[in-house]
């Protein structure tokens, strides 16, 4: 890891780690929790949608699986309040394992077909949540036992859980970039047929990326369910969650390390602001879309790649300029 990269990561996560200590209003902590939640979701989506170039629209299904796992297991009691958090790794691993056959089948298709195949996952999961009434409570919803946390710092455990999941997602994302998994995925994204032809284990790396990606989404869903306290099929398996992570990744920059986080830190507060301003009406979705359209119009590659590209162009110009002045001096 470069020193600058390490410094960026330590600063970012360090600041977020101490942030709640200085913040009073509950709504700010709440907003931060959702921002971190979408940061983690977008970062995990990026493993498949960004690195592998497979635009999954089914991640909300796994988010919902994680959410219902927590709600079903901790329907009556959450012990000392921290047990659901300790169960998260197991939920993540189970979701990852469950995704292997699904990914294996879904990833035989590509691009837009893959998007459609995966969105059916979402609707299958939602339909199951509605209809498996004995397990999920159906449209009545399912409650999670109330955690015995103090009123004053009630949200803190959820905040730190989301922060930890974001750290895990970023760690995996970073690891992917630096390992041959990332190299193989980049080849798959650029030209899958050619990648086959030079011996890349295409199916393997796609399934690995999908497994890690949806495993994180499931863990995030688990924390969300616990934080929400009561979950319904239409919110636990919500197309808006899928679309949220996709939009944020596109906005910040697909296939970059920090892009998804940048996207989440722009869109989640924007969405919340508009939601308050336009009250209960659905108009906030229009404003939310307008922001997205505006940024994509100005920065079509996403925020981060566009800025990087401009910086690169600028430094190249400076190099050329300094070469030119050198030449002039030599000429003199």
């Amino acid at each position, binding site marked *: 890891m470069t020193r600058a990269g390490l410094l960026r990561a330590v600063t970012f996560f360090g600041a977020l780690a101490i942030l709640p200590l200085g913040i009073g209003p509950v709504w700010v902590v709440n907003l931060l929790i959702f921002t971190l939640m979408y940061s983690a979701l977008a970062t995990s989506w990026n493993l498949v949608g960004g690195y592998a170039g497979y635009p999954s629209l089914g991640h909300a299904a796994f988010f919902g699986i994680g959410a219902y796992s927590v709600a079903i297991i901790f329907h009556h009691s959450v012990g000392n309040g921290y047990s659901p958090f300790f169960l998260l790794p197991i939920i993540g691993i189970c979701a990852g394992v469950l995704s292997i056959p699904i990914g294996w089948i879904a990833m035989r298709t590509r691009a837009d077909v893959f998007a459609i195949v995966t969105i059916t996952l979402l609707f299958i999961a939602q339909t199951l949540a509605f209809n498996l009434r004995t397990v999920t409570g159906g449209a009545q919803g399912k409650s999670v036992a109330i955690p015995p946390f103090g009123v004053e710092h009630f949200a803190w455990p959820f905040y730190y859980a989301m922060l930890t999941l974001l750290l895990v997602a970023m760690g995996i994302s970073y690891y992917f970039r630096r390992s041959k998994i990332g190299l193989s995925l*980049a*080849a798959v994204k650029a030209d899958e047929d050619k990648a086959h032809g030079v011996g890349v284990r295409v199916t393997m790396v796609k399934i690995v990326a999908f497994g890690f990606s949806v495993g994180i989404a499931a863990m995030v869903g688990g924390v969300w369910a616990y934080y929400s306290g009561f979950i319904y099929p239409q919110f636990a398996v919500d197309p808006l969650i899928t679309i949220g992570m996709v939009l944020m990744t596109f906005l910040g920059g697909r296939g970059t390390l920090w892009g998804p986080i940048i996207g989440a830190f722009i869109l989640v507060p924007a969405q919340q602001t508009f939601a308050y301003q336009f009250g209960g009406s659905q108009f906030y979705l229009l404003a939310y879309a307008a922001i997205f359209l505006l940024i994509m119009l100005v920065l079509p590659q996403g925020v981060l790649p566009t800025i990087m590209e401009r910086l690169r162009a600028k430094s190249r110009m400076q190099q050329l300029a300094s070469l030119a002045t050198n030449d002039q001096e030599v000429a003199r």
Partner: protein
Amino acid sequence: MSSLLEVRGLTKRFGGITAVDNCSFEVEQGTITALIGPNGSGKTTAFNILTGYLKADSGDFSFNGKKVEKPSPAKLYRRGLSRTFQQARIFPHLSVLENLVVASSYPLANLFRSRVTESDRLTAGEMLEEFKLSDLSDYRASDLSYGQRKLLEFAAVLMSSPKLVLLDEPTAGVNPVMIETMERHIRSRHAQGVTFLIVEHDMQLVMRLCDPVIVLDRGATIAKGAPSDVQTNPLVLDAYLGD
């Protein structure tokens, strides 16, 4: 001489068109074999079948003495059968170095190792040296000229130390100097024991580089022999010039 690649009765139809029609031939170990024929004679289709990109309707082939069941590009590549494409196909967003590393058919466990290890750097570095691409090592492959891309693609498929390399028009669309460079690299690798099967339209190159020459016409083998024999074969002349 034993045959490294043995093709038996390969047939492939696209709708009503029979692209490869009961085609059989052998590629002997240690040769530079040419596969020539007029446009549409089924050369590239044959390549695509032999490298696992297309499924044959009937017929089969053996590689290295073993019949290939369910041909798949990645498996064949790892067994030592590489190919290049007519339009140089490289990974434009990867660096020149990474283009070689990704093609080095690393073992499964290495997936979890560093993207470019020191030993990768070493082996790929030697290859770049051989192909005079060392200076471009950290450039994006998309920055290369077309000729350089062809060289890069060729260098990349050599990373797995293949036994047989299938080159699909290695000199199409590149300048005369690059054609010589390409020829030199083929000869040098051939001297090291690599067998080649080459589809090529530059007949001068074929005549001075390849022996034997296999001629396809309408999907079937119509002639095979030394370049001088093939050149005077009436069947071949008819295929190229006749109606």
